[in-house]
């Protein structure tokens, strides 16, 4: 789908993601994550055996709420609604130099890369069928 320029620009700048999946009983659940936007989709890294990965394998109906900043009160967000899937990849998480996410040590990043290479970790992609700003109508 074509993503509006202002929505794509927001997704390209922000890495704080609430991944929405469905539990085994069908109820919605949320997984706070870090993710990135590339190739028209939102991508996160997770363990293949994690609850979120199992939820997406069982039911591909998935969404991401991508929000600005960490700990900011003037929160804004974009909802990316679509289909989730798992993807094996040997590359580590993307360059973090411009990310606003809390920094991890190089040893943590190294362990993630190792586990991606071994297949213990996979990418979880959300391919959008809808991407738009969510309304935030209240003031503090």
């Amino acid at each position, binding site marked *: 789908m074509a993503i509006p320029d202002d929505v794509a620009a927001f997704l390209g700048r922000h890495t704080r993601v609430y991944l929405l999946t*469905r539990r085994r009983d069908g109820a*919605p659940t949320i997984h706070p994550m870090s993710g990135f936007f590339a190739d028209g989709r939102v991508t996160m890294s997770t363990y293949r055996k994690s609850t979120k990965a199992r939820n997406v394998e069982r039911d591909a*109906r998935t969404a991401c*709420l991508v929000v600005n900043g960490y700990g900011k009160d003037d929160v804004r967000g974009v909802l990316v609604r679509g289909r989730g899937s798992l993807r094996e990849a040997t590359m580590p998480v993307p360059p973090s130099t411009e990310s606003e*996410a809390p920094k991890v040590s190089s040893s943590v990043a190294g362990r993630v890369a190792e586990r991606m290479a071994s297949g213990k970790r996979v990418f979880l992609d959300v391919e959008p069928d809808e991407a738009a700003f969510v309304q935030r109508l209240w003031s503090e």
Partner: protein
Amino acid sequence: MAREAIAMTREELLAFLGTQRWVALGTLDPDGTPVGDLVPVVLDGERLRFAVPRGSRADDNIRRDPRVCCAADEFPSYYEIRGAVAHGRAEPHGTPDRLGSEWTEYAIVLDDVTSFDFRKVRNKY
């Protein structure tokens, strides 16, 4: 690492949620896809109250299927990440005085909550 090892105690959970002003709210669209919104929230004893604009997508979704999820988290630094994800059935709670008649409020009981506090992580790399 077992998840239980870094979960908040009940006391810590209520103290944490008591400081939150908004949450990510998960509801189900008519086709069953989960969707998220940003909504204002207040802790009310053992319940979490949140408000949505009357007639909004989230409001319509809740009226059709009251199963919801609320997530709140904080990120001062990696090893200070804290958060909680609460699941429940949204019960109508009227019009919130603090927001006005354009809004409608719901509440969930905090009896199905997952929490994490990275300050409890023992093996730091």
